[in-house]
């Protein structure tokens, strides 16, 4: 979109409600997608949207790509004061906690990729989840979520929500009858991960959306492990998608960010929470995220291809007890994944034929995948759920979730798959051989 020098600092399409009307029915402002600096690209293939959607081209300089607006504040004028007085501050540039061109550019790219009206970026994935859940769950409200959950989300729901006057139930989202039985008169929200962490169970979005609609609930889907290249949850009935953008969306393990994406109506409600919690994303981080997103489709293709090859190798290895990759027929949710996900992504969970200590030895023997928490970067990362993402749970709780000893989580990067397979092979031999010597 081309921008012209203008006196309005913000979305040029934004209408005033028309103060001075005789009653409510005469008000003029309608909800529009965005906010944006012009009509944004919404149609096209995923790679085209990755490269072009949301880009803010600066007419004054002719710079290609969105410049970095590393400013905290903006010149105010009568337009800005009017926006504050009439309640459409989200459509104007006032202060970078409220909105900034770099936030808008990356938000528009994310909205286009998810097929949504609006999106918001946050200073972390947890900031996105906290603002979203607190915006959609009233005090006294009840949240229905999964037993199989990222530790950070589990901690927030289990340890913090009660102090904020909200209650929560953890149920298996694949057991719809149990899920339905857990719905209370004050249940407002279902929150699930599209691909669960670390067992990569697939959430049956169409079934969950039907359940939510039947009971007048909203459905929020954390699609961090899949990205919009693999699935657009809004098209399957979700009300909102949240992401830890630190993972696949950015893809380079060099920033912390989050996103919430959906209808303008709901994202506006979340924006109000983001404002008071102060969890906005810095303009420079927005620039990095926007740049990372340009290669999202390419990267996801490579992650998926590599992960398929690595998972196929692991599946045939005698020292590997179990491989969980929804792209393999051996995964319990293979059929569901095939129908719902166009790309499974690069996450593999596997169990070695050994203990957590041997799994740690394996991780330390690997030369290419880095021993680090997080996922979704161009480099392969490997970690053990028992001492990272699921350290907040007891061993018995982990066992009940299906996380058995020797469980390894591998985020397959975009390296050459032959190198990754060779490295895994030598590490498996050395880690499991040393154990038998000790025994």
């Amino acid at each position, binding site marked *: 979109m081309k921008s012209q020098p203008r006196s309005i600092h913000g979305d040029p399409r934004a209408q*005033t*409600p*028309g*103060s*001075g*009307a*005789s*009653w*409510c*029915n*005469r*008000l*003029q*402002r*309608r*909800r529009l997608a965005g906010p944006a600096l012009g009509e944004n690209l919404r149609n096209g293939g995923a790679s085209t949207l990755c490269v072009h959607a949301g880009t803010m081209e600066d007419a004054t300089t002719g710079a290609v790509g969105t410049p970095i607006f590393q400013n905290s504040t903006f010149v105010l004028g009568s337009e800005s004061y009017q926006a*504050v*007085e*009439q*309640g*459409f501050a989200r459509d104007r540039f006032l202060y970078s906690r409220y909105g900034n061109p770099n936030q808008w550019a990356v938000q528009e790219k994310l909205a286009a990729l998810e097929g949504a009206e609006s999106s918001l970026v946050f200073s972390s994935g947890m900031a996105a989840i906290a603002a979203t859940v607190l915006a959609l*769950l*009233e*005090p*006294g*409200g*009840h949240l229905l979520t999964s037993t199989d959950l990222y530790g950070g989300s589990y901690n927030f729901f289990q340890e913090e929500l009660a102090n904020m*006057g909200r209650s929560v139930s953890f149920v298996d989202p694949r057991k719809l009858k149990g899920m339905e039985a857990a719905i209370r*008169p*004050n*249940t*407002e929200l279902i929150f699930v991960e599209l691909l669960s962490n670390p067992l990569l169970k697939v959430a049956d979005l169409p079934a969950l959306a039907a359940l939510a*609609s039947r*009971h*007048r*609930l*909203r459905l929020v889907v954390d699609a961090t492990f899949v990205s919009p290249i693999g699935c657009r949850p809004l098209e399957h009935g979700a009300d909102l998608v949240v992401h830890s953008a630190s993972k696949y969306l950015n893809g380079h393990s060099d920033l912390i960010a989050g996103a919430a994406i959906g209808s303008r*109506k709901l994202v*506006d409600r979340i924006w109000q929470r983001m404002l008071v919690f102060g969890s906005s994303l810095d303009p420079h981080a927005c620039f990095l995220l926007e740049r990372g997103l340009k290669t999202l489709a390419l990267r996801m293709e490579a992650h998926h291809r590599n992960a398929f090859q690595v998972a196929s190798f692991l599946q045939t290895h005698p020292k590997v007890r179990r491989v969980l990759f929804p792209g393999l027929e051996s995964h319990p949710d293979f059929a569901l994944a095939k129908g719902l996900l166009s790309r499974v992504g690069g996450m593999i969970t596997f169990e070695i034929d050994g203990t957590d200590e041997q799994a740690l030895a394996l991780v330390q023997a690997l030369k290419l995948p880095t021993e680090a928490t997080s996922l979704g970067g161009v480099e392969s990362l490997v970690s053990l759920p028992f001492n990272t993402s699921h350290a907040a749970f007891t061993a018995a709780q982990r066992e009940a979730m299906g996380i058995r000893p020797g469980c390894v989580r591998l985020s397959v990067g975009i390296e050459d798959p032959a190198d990754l397979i060779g490295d895994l092979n030598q590490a498996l031999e050395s880690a499991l051989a040393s154990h038998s010597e000790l025994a």
Partner: protein
Amino acid sequence: MKNGISLSGLSEFVHEVKQDGKEAQASYGVQLDWQSGTRSQVTALAMQLGRHRLAREFQWTIDEPRPLLGQNHGPNPQEVLLSGLGGCLLVAYAVGASVLGIQLEKLQIQVRGNLDLRGFLGVEEQVPVAFQEIEYQVHLAGDGSREQFEHLHRQVERQSPNRMSLAQGVPLRGHLTIEKRL
């Protein structure tokens, strides 16, 4: 935001329900549990707004004053009824003033009603059980003109749901369930 109300949010909601009347459907409920004597604990039930539920975390107590055989732990049912009328009127004045572009400085409403308790007690057949009359006095101050305030007053008379419900009456049905003794 003028008067603490987002006129843009209001305008967007108006246009949303012009497109989709389902989003304007609101269902309310309260539950009263007898505590002792004339005292009840009121719990707001989950609302339904449009296609979605809205949890309501509110409880309050209703009681009668001591001369009317209560323990005076809370406002009486008549005061709760009058405040339900007054609260609804107040919303309409605040919203209407914002729509008109008036910055309010004062908005105060007094609601008064008279009952002849001989009606409730059944001691005099000619005496009506209902309120004989309900009256309210609105005090407004702000940067609007006299014409604007009078227009606002007339609009609120036409648009306040609780006012209209009391003024016109609504079908009211009570059902009885006799439960097993504890």
